[in-house]
Every structure is written in structure tokens, then in C-alpha cells.
């Protein structure tokens, strides 16, 4: 165990250097006094004893040094000294310390927040062993995520997979309680089959239920570690307790290990229960969308895949889908869910935000780089100021390596402080951010909340170290390069702003330009998106959506109340017109589609002929501000019993009736016969997603519709701010349908801003980053110019003595500053194009090579650069030639 003894000894020396020193002193003192005693004893003379002993002993200090500086770990000792020395040196200039730590802190903090979000959103996998093997089964006609399997299909597939296939459905449950306390919408996984065996999840306490228990519907539950510790303190204490779902008790038989948080992406599971044990209503739900068949694909995947496909094709490929819709050409597909299953019908958060987050990551990295270069410039200026100190230390025999290390340790200290400050800022900032997300981005909240785990800490440490490398090494090497003689002589004439500092400033300007032009592109994207919605003036449009589901009002009651409600809305002062529809524009999901059937296009397959189709009332187009291009709007005579009429969108007309007037033509939907006469063509309007082109749309007359649905939508055009109308509108609704669900009662502009929330956030953040970058670059430029002016005081004095005017001096300094900016812009333009190309996926309505944002960015940089160098140039102009020339 010699290495253990050795290691223990070294660690002790490392962590308690003071103690080791004291012990050494004590040991030497003992040695001395024993030697003195012996000496006295031998000579019989006590007077000279201490001196004699010390003579024997030799140079105590030298010896202590000798005993310390031996062994292979000796390099660690002086580093401790370097740290102490560096800290003292930094503390002596608090302003520098604060500025550097703060700018580094902001930089690293922003990096930590974005990295944390990327980590939890993109990199984190499901907490089961070999998560990469997990697959859910799809029956995908065209790669669309559809995973509905009927019970019989599930049985067949499970038999084919032989105990390796389970089903689960994650649902938020209202009315669950534990210890008599209601739970806030816990996520309950209703599972069937050998779920835990397939997942290979282990219990932290108790046991997990198996296939037979889930088949028999035993009322038992397995809960998450988080839930168990939150409600029962320890996992073991949860065993045997009861949770209630819909009033029915479930006995907790096990707690999963902490790393397993369920299969749903972005929502930790609370408990898992056998699907068959749930109340009948929920059990029926378990056949609907959101129920997934999960299995593992190991090395035998090709075989497994083939056998499952064979079974599926034999039993089910042409069967009926749950819900009664016919299904053509269903094929079995497999989806990798190593990162979790996206919850139900919700927006795919990962797909939606991973690109923007990566772009933001690049942005904050550039920002940090600028901050680093600034600190590097500051350090270099400091090193110049300390050149005499460094020269003295060199002349006293310090090796260059030692000095470089000393300076690098200072840089590391700075970076370390910056990293710590960054972590604090990140904790605070991410909490602030996730609580104040704009409407429409709330589902990003859980991912933005920073989890201070090993990945984030390692990342931050790595970033801080990289920062120190970036801004610490070059100044340290440079500071120690000058010879002793030159440093001590400190001749002012030799001091010129070194090329490297000017290069750094130019680079900063270039990087700032990249961020500025990216911000410009994102702002342009936001603007184009907001303008791209069909219709006009969203500021004076109120959208109302009523929902009869889950209320005492029947669908019919809602439908019957629509005309009365419409009349009530129209009577509200400030309302211009009211139209009724079926679809809330710009709300994800739920756009009804149908397959167009018309003469000459029978050969198109279903997907190619799929169009949006929904009923609207007369006045809908006028109210929304959609232009009628040809024909007419619906009117009061388009009712049941008359010719069924439709209005089509312009893009539909262009595709199916190229070069002719479609008004009067007859179309239909496949399976329903033709018999719909086109009476009008209207402009295109976006419905669900601003980025996709406006859907080809067939508008049906609402008075001719036979299927009313459980929801009703009104578009209310107001003369002024629609929020004024909202209370009256609410009162009208409640007077008519007291317990109806009001899904939407918003100005259209609010819906619009929800839709572009992501883009707006990106734009705002990128502008903030861009401005910060410009500010940092300006500070850098100011520093270099101020230094240059002060270093060239004598030269400027000579110039003025020879007749240069103040204006000429100002022009000279400004010219040099602007030359730096120009070089920076020249460097920045290609970089900006590279950056813009990688942003391409996020852009809308602008090309990555749009020169306008670049031009604006360059103009801002020139303006800010001029301002930043005004102060140094003015102080150059105020140089008094007499004083300046005499100065040295």
C-alpha cells in the first residue's frame, strides 16, 4: 500500500500547507534542543550550546525550502502560492476585477443557461438502461406519427413479440389525491403488458408490478422516486400507502429508482397503474391517441421487425382505425424514443426549440468570445503597466516559465471567479426566464430551469478554463518576452500599441457584426411572419371560441345559441361586424381537412388532393379582412335546401382551375360525391402555422353545414381596441350559456404574438446579444485608442509643434480607429454570411445574404466606434506640445 501512504502524505501536505510548516518547525526545534542538550552534556559548557547546535544544524530556512521542494508533486505547492499572490494582485485593482468578472460572468452564465436548456431538451435520455433500444410502434401511412392500435391488433402484436411489448399512455389526471390532499394534475402512466420488464426499470423500494397484475387490473400503483420522497419522505415509507384516482384507491407497491422519470418528454411521471384498473371512462380513453406500444430493438432488430411486420400485415394493415375512420395502406413503423415520447397532441417542444437553442448557443459563445478578448486586452494593458515589476522579478532570477505560470494563474483565477459568478447569474436568470416566458412558450419552462448537475458544472468549468486559455496565455507570454534590460529602462518611445491588440479589437468588431446582422435577420423574420397572416388589422379583431365539452351544455344547445350570440355581439357598442366560423386562425392543430374530388384530377392520391375545409358564415371574409377576388361571399340565401355552395381560396383556384374562372364550377369531396358549386374565390389566409404556406382551402356555408361539432368560433371586428369589448362579450356569452367553456376571448393580435412568441424571443435575445457585443467591442476600441494616444503623447506633441492643427490630430486618431472598425467589418462580413447560413432554418421571408442587416450592423458599429474613440481623440487634441515634448 505504499502508494496509498504516499498519496495520503502528499494530500495532507497539499491541503494543510500551514500545518506542515508548523510541524516542521516543531520537529526542528526538538532536534535543536536535543542537540543542544547533548552538546552541553559533552562539553560541560552550556553558554555556547544554542549557537553550536545551530551551527551543526545549518541554514534552517534553506533546509525548510529543501524539504518542501522535493518529490514529484512539488509543482502543486508553488501554484497555491501563485493563487495567493495572484489574488492579492487582482484585489489591488478592484475596478478591473469587477469589470472582468462581471463580463465573464455574464458570458459564462448565458452559456450555462443555454447549455442547460439544450442538455435537458436535446441530450437527456430516458432514464432506463440502454435507452437507445426503446422504440414505439407506429402505423404510419406517410411517416406521420400515428400510433393508434386497436385492442385486437395490440394482442396480435404482443403475441408476436413474446413478452417484449407493452403499452402505456401518459395522462394528466384531475382529481387524484394522496393522504387526502389533492394532487395538482399528476402524470399517470396507464400501462399494460410487461411494461417495467421491457423498460428494465428497477425498484428503489418495494416491487414493480408484472404482466399478470396489469392484465388482471389489480388496483396497485408504482410511484416515482420524486413523488415518494415528496409525500412520504423516504421511498420505503411509501410502500403500502394509498393513492386515490377518481375516488378509487390504489395501493403503492413500489417506488422506481430516481433516474427513471417516465417516458414522456418534458413531464416527469408521477405514478404508473395497470390500465385495466382505471375507472371505465379512463380505460376507454386508453384506446385513443396517446397510447403507445413500446418495445426494445436489440441486435436482433431486423428479425423482430420482420416478424412484427408480418403479423401486422396479416391481421391489421387494412383494418379499421380506432374511432371508425377507414385506414388505407397502413404500415408498421418504429420510432426511436430514447429521448422520450412527445406528450399527446402537444407541440413537439424539442423539434420546435432545438434549432433556435443551438443558434442561441452559437450567439452566446460568440458573446463570450468577445468578453474574453476584452478581458484579454485588459490583461495585456495590465501586463504593460506591470512590465517594470515583471522585469524586476526576471532580473532577480525568476524563470520565464514561472512568471508565465503566475500570470496564467491570475487569468485562471479571473476565469474561475467569472465562472462562479456565471453560475449564480445562470441560476437566477434561468429561474427568472422560465417564470416569465412569453405566452405561447410556457412549455419550454421546465427545460429552462437550470438543473445544477454534473453536466452543467463540467460545462461551465470547461468554458471557464477555455476562457482563461483564450485571454490568459497570449498576454502572459507577451508580458514576459521583453528582456530584463528593456523592461527596466522602460523607454517610452518603444511603447506602441502592439499589432495583436489592434487585431483583437478588429476581431471583436467583426464578431459584433455577426451578432448584429443575425439579429437583423431574425427581426426581419419576425416582421415578415407577422405580416404574412392573411386578412388585415389583427389589432381590431376579437376571436371568441366556445367549447361545450365537459360542460352541461349540449352541442346542439351551443349550435342553437349561435345566432342569438351573434346578435348580442353585434349589439355591443364598438363592434363593427361579427362572423361565425369553425376554426380559430393560428391555433395549432385541429384544422379540418378533406380530400378534394373534381373532374380531371381523379388521378391525384389522397395526400395530394387534401385541402382544408370548414364552414364559415356570411360576412366572414369581410370581418377577417380577406379579399373576395372573384364571385361573391356567402349570403343569407345559402341555407339547407338550396344549392350547396363553397368559396375557394386563390391558391386552390390556381392549382385546380389554372387560367380560368372557377366560379360556377362544381366540386366535391371524395366519398361524398360532387355537388358543391363554387360561388367565389378569396385571398389566401394562413390557418395553423405562419411558416407553412397558406393551406388550399374550401370554405363551406355554415348555414348549410350538418355537422355542428362541439365548438363555436366567432370573429368580431371592432372599431377600436378590442379589449374594451371583452367584458361585454363575456357577459353576453354567460347570459346565453352560463356554464360554457370559453377557450378564447382574445384580440387576434394576441394570438398572433403567441404564434410568433418563439421568433420574437429569438429576435429580442439576439438584439440584446448584438448590443452587448457592440458595447464590448466599443469598450475594447476605446481602451486601445486611449492607450495609443497616451503612448504617443510625445509624437503628437511634435506634430502639433510642427504645425498640425487640433482638427488634424482628431482626424488622425479617428481615422485610425475607423480603420480598425473597417478591418473588423471586412472580417465580419464573411463570418456573418457563415452565421446567417446556419440560421437559415429559422429565417422566413429573408435570404441569409440579405445585405440590409449587414449594412445596418456596419453603420451601428461605425457610429459606436466613432463615439468610443471621440474621447481619446479629443484628449489627443488637447495635448500641449511644450509639455509633451519635455515629458521624457
Amino acid at each position, binding site marked *: 500500500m505504499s502508494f496509498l501512504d504516499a498519496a495520503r502524505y502528499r494530500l495532507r501536505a497539499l491541503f494543510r500547507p500551514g500545518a506542515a510548516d508548523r510541524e516542521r518547525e516543531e520537529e526542528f526545534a*526538538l532536534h535543536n534542543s536535543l*542537540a543542544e542538550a547533548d552538546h552541553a552534556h559533552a562539553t560541560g559548557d552550556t553558554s555556547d550550546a544554542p549557537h553550536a547546535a545551530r551551527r551543526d544544524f545549518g541554514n534552517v530556512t534553506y533546509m525548510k525550502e529543501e524539504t518542501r521542494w522535493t*518529490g514529484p508533486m512539488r509543482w502543486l505547492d508553488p501554484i497555491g502560492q501563485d493563487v495567493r499572490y495572484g489574488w492579492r494582485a487582482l484585489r489591488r485593482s478592484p475596478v478591473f476585477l469587477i469589470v472582468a468578472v462581471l463580463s465573464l460572468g455574464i458570458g459564462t452564465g448565458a452559456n450555462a443557461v443555454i447549455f442547460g436548456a439544450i442538455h435537458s431538451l436535446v441530450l437527456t435520455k430516458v432514464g432506463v438502461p440502454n435507452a437507445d433500444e426503446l422504440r414505439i410502434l407506429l402505423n404510419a401511412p406517410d411517416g406521420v406519427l400515428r400510433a393508434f392500435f386497436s385492442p385486437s391488433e395490440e394482442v396480435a402484436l404482443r403475441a408476436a413479440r413474446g413478452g417484449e411489448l407493452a403499452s402505456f399512455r401518459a395522462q394528466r389526471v384531475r382529481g387524484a389525491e394522496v393522504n387526502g390532499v389533492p394532487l395538482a394534475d399528476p402524470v399517470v402512466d396507464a400501462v399494460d403488458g410487461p411494461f417495467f420488464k421491457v423498460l428494465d426499470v428497477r425498484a428503489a423500494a418495494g416491487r414493480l408490478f408484472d404482466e399478470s397484475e396489469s392484465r388482471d387490473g389489480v388496483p396497485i400503483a408504482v410511484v416515482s422516486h420524486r413523488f415518494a420522497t415528496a409525500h412520504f419522505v423516504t421511498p420505503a415509507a411509501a410502500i403500502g400507502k394509498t393513492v386515490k384516482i377518481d375516488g378509487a384507491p390504489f395501493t403503492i407497491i413500489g417506488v422506481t429508482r430516481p433516474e427513471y422519470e417516465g417516458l414522456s418528454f418534458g413531464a416527469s411521471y408521477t405514478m404508473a397503474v395497470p390500465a385495466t384498473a382505471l375507472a371505465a371512462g379512463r380505460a376507454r380513453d386508453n384506446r385513443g391517441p396517446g397510447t403507445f406500444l413500446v418495445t426494445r430493438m436489440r441486435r436482433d432488430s431486423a428479425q423482430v421487425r420482420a416478424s412484427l411486420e408480418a403479423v401486422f400485415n396479416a391481421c391489421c394493415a387494412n383494418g379499421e382505425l380506432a374511432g371508425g375512420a377507414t385506414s388505407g395502406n397502413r404500415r408498421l413503423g418504429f420510432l426511436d424514443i430514447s429521448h422520450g415520447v412527445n406528450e399527446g397532441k402537444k407541440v413537439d417542444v424539442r423539434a420546435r426549440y432545438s434549432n433556435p437553442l443551438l443558434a442561441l448557443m452559437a450567439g452566446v459563445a460568440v458573446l463570450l468570445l468577445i468578453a474574453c478578448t476584452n478581458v484579454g486586452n485588459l490583461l495585456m494593458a495590465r501586463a504593460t503597466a506591470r512590465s517594470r515589476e515583471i522585469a524586476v522579478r526576471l532580473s532577480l532570477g525568476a524563470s520565464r516559465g514561472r512568471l508565465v505560470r503566475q500570470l496564467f494563474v491570475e487569468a485562471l483565477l479571473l476565469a474561475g471567479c467569472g465562472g462562479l459568478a456565471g453560475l449564480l447569474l445562470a441560476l437566477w436568470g434561468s429561474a427568472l426566464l422560465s417564470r416569465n416566458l412569453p405566452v405561447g412558450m410556457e412549455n419550454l419552462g421546465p427545460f429552462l430551469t437550470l438543473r445544477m448537475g454534473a453536466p452543467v458544472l463540467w460545462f461551465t468549468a470547461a468554458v471557464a478554463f477555455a476562457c482563461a486559455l483564450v485571454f490568459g496565455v497570449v498576454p502572459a507570454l507577451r508580458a514576459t518576452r521583453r528582456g530584463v534590460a528593456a523592461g527596466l529602462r522602460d523607454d517610452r518611445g518603444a511603447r506602441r500599441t502592439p499589432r495583436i491588440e489592434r487585431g483583437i479589437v478588429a476581431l471583436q468588431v467583426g464578431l459584433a457584426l455577426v451578432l448584429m446582422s443575425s439579429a437583423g435577420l431574425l427581426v426581419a423574420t419576425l416582421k415578415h411572419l407577422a405580416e404574412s397572416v392573411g386578412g388585415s388589422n389583427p389589432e381590431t379583431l376579437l376571436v371568441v371560441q366556445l367549447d361545450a365539452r365537459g360542460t352541461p351544455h349540449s352541442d346542439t344547445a351551443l349550435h342553437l345559441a349561435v345566432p342569438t350570440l351573434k346578435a348580442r355581439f353585434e349589439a355591443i357598442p364598438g363592434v363593427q361586424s361579427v362572423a361565425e366560423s369553425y376554426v380559430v386562425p393560428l391555433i395549432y392543430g385541429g384544422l379540418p381537412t378533406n380530400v378534394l374530388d373534381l373532374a380531371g384530377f381523379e388521378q391525384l392520391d389522397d395526400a395530394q388532393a387534401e385541402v382544408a375545409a370548414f364552414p364559415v358564415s356570411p360576412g366572414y371574409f369581410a370581418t377577417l379582412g380577406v379579399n373576395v377576388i372573384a364571385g361573391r361571399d356567402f349570403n343569407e340565401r345559402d341555407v339547407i335546401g338550396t344549392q350547396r355552395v363553397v368559396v375557394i381560396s386563390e391558391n386552390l383556384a390556381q392549382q385546380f382551375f389554372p387560367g380560368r374562372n372557377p366560379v360556377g364550377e362544381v366540386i366535391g369531396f371524395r366519398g361524398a360525391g360532387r355537388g358543391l358549386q363554387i360561388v367565389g374565390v378569396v385571398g389566401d389566409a394562413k390557418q395553423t402555422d405562419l411558416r407553412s404556406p397558406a393551406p388550399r382551402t374550401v370554405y363551406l356555408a355554415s348555414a348549410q353545414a350538418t355537422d355542428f361539432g362541439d365548438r363555436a368560433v366567432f370573429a368580431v371586428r371592432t372599431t377600436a381596441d378590442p379589449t374594451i369589448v371583452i367584458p361585454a362579450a363575456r357577459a353576453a356569452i354567460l347570459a346565453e350559456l352560463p356554464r360554457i367553456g370559453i377557450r378564447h376571448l382574445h384580440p387576434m393580435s394576441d394570438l398572433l404574438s403567441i404564434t410568433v412568441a418563439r421568433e420574437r424571443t429569438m429576435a429580442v435575445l439576439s438584439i440584446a446579444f448584438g448590443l452587448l457585443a457592440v458595447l464590448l467591442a466599443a469598450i475594447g476600441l476605446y481602451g486601445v485608442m486611449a492607450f495609443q494616444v497616451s503612448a504617443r503623447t510625445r509624437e503628437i506633441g511634435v506634430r502639433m509643434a510642427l504645425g498640425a492643427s487640433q482638427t488634424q490630430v482628431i482626424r488622425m486618431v479617428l481615422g485610425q480607429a475607423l480603420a480598425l472598425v473597417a478591418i473588423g467589418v471586412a472580417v465580419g462580413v464573411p463570418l456573418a454570411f457563415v452565421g446567417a447560413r446556419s440560421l437559415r432554418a429559422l429565417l422566413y421571408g429573408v435570404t441569409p445574404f440579405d445585405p440590409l442587416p449587414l449594412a445596418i450592423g456596419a453603420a451601428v458599429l461605425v457610429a459606436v466606434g466613432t463615439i468610443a474613440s471621440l474621447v481619446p481623440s479629443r484628449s489627443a487634441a488637447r495635448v500641449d506640445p511644450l509639455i509633451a515634448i519635455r515629458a521624457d
Partner: protein
Amino acid sequence: MADLLPGTLDMLILRTLTLAEMHGYAIAQHIARVSNDALQIEKGSLYPALERLQRSGWVVSKWAQSPTGRRARYYRITASGRRALGDEVSAFKATYDAVARVLSARLKSET
């Protein structure tokens, strides 16, 4: 003390510690006494050597009361230290024999 061959001091210390745990001064005294004062270990060599031996894990130390009641650091040889001592002693013997052969050969030629 005359210059020792490199590594000899470590060997002497290790050998001394095989007899008993002792503090630094006692080690020096013991070596001096056994060598009839021929080997006076300077403290400036002794303590760095002890430091080195501890870093190698051949020797461990602990603080304890000395017989006079003062606190003293007592050194003890470890198992690996004993192994190292064995190696060093055989290496030293080999060197010593070689040196002796060279010297005796020269002496013979001189006579």
C-alpha cells in the same frame, strides 16, 4: 560526514527504523553511535531524506509523546519500505563489491 554514495542515506535510515520507531534526532544519533561517529548525519540531509521517504510511502510518521514529555514525530518503516530496503541493500552490496574489487586490483598493482 564524508560524502555518501547516492541513496546510501535512505538505506541507513530505513535500516535504522527496522529496529524501532524513532524520531529524527534519535535516527541521527543511532547512525552516529553505531558507526562510531564516522557517519554524522547532518540535519539538513536527514529531514529532506525523511520527507522523500514519506513521499515514496516507505516511511510513515505520527506525532507522539517522547520520553521527556515533548511532542516528537516518530517515524516507522512500512512493509514496502522493508522491501525497498532489501533491494537497496543488495544493490549497495553489489556496488560495494565492485568498488572493492576495483580498489583491491589497483592496490595489488601498486605493490
